[in-house]
């Protein structure tokens, strides 16, 4: 069992490095806002149309922003050799991975979620629909991050992995996108969003419990090369 003090050290060092590199956290946010801006420009400013497709726009933009942030998830650690030390260290690699992902979620994904009410209002979403949107994002983004992290570690040894990462990750993002948007659409048309929300919660628990093991296995093959 890992001692609490060690755990504290790990958490604080993770957050400190992430905070020192805070300009990196800004890029996915700007990307998210810009993608959301492109849709009305491409489709036209009709409020009725924008209101119908708003959940899809926000979910797709969030999904792409997370995808963009994935490729530097373990990149620096892999390049400067810290990753090898992490794998060789005596304490559990699984715990370390979970802490890293938690830090990533809190510093990159959470600001993005906090930003969505502004974009949602601009697209004409009402308050209770926004509430559902926020809960789907809170349940769905951890799934996106965890599944994406598995693929990001698998492609770690490839220098320019952006396009390949998209090919690997996007098909697996489909369920989250479907249930996320359908929950929001259900609320918008006056139905209960409980069903898709429960399924999103299931997916969240599933990926939280299963993907750390896949990430650890992928990290070990990456380092052993």
């Amino acid at each position, binding site marked *: 069992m890992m001692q609490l003090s060690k755990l504290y050290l790990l958490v604080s060092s993770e957050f400190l490095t992430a905070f020192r590199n805070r300009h990196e956290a800004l890029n996915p946010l700007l990307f998210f806002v810009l993608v959301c801006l492109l849709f009305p420009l491409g489709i036209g400013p009709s409020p009725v149309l924008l209101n119908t497709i708003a959940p899809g726009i926000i979910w797709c933009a969030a999904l792409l922003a997370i995808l963009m942030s994935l490729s530097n998830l373990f990149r620096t650690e892999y390049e400067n050799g810290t990753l090898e030390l992490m794998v060789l260290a005596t304490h559990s690699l699984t715990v370390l991975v979970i802490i890293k992902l938690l830090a990533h979620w809190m510093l990159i994904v959470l600001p993005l979620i906090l930003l969505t009410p502004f974009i949602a209002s601009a697209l004409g979403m009402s308050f209770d629909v926004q509430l559902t949107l926020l809960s789907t994002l809170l349940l769905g983004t951890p799934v996106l991050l965890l599944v994406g992290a598995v693929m990001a570690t698998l492609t770690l040894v490839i220098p320019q992995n952006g396009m390949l990462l998209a090919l*690997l990750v996007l098909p697996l993002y489909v369920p989250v996108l479907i249930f996320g948007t359908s929950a929001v659409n259900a609320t918008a048309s006056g139905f209960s969003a409980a069903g898709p929300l429960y399924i999103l919660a299931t997916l969240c628990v599933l990926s939280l419990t299963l993907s750390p093991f*896949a990430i650890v296995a992928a990290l070990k093959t990456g380092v052993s090369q």
Partner: protein
Amino acid sequence: MMKWLHTMASSAWFYRFSGRVIPWLMILFIALLLYGLYGGLVLAPADYQQGDAFRIIYVHVPAAWMSLFIYVVMAVYGFIALVWRIKLAEVLLISSAPVGAAFTFLALVTGSLWGKPMWGTWWSWDARLTSELLLLFLYFGVMGLYAAIEDKRTASKAVSILTLVGVVNIPIIHYSVTWWNTLHQGSTVSMTDKSSMHIDMLAPLLVMALAFKVYYGIALLLRTRTELIEREPNSKWLKAIIEEKIND
């Protein structure tokens, strides 16, 4: 059991064995294919609703079955490769991927050809079509990842993990897409329920499914042989086999 598995997993044994099996599989495949096509295209009666257009199922349905079957088989190889570190399983996995992708593509194309006269459209955002398309991308992902990593042992391990993650996700993707939209007709052939298809129509379909399975076997063995030579070009077993060929 494990000893037997390891003998079978040696490259030399596999190469000799597959060389002997392939001609027999070819004969079996041609016989099944001819019977299946004759039964399906000539003997089976036309459908009372869809006319002769329904006959495309003799290619479409077996191809769709194979597309899923091969992915599951790949995941089994991936599991074997990761747990018992058997090199041959890695080679079998990666040799299966293009065959599976081809079957998936065939299922999509034949489905689209059938959809034009029946549904009046080449493509519709139907659940089964969409999940089949996503499956095609999963196959492309496997092939892309393997091609992108230079060291083939590392690539194989990565691909094994990827297929295992994929196989967990396939049912989730499938059910989520089903929930999203469905237009496709339900299955007419089922293992558990009594099939709603007449035996004259069903028999050729099952024979075609078998023929496709045998074809997969042939393609897999041929691809694996090539991949083995590519991976171990200077090995002793290969030199021994080449010498035998020269001496014959």
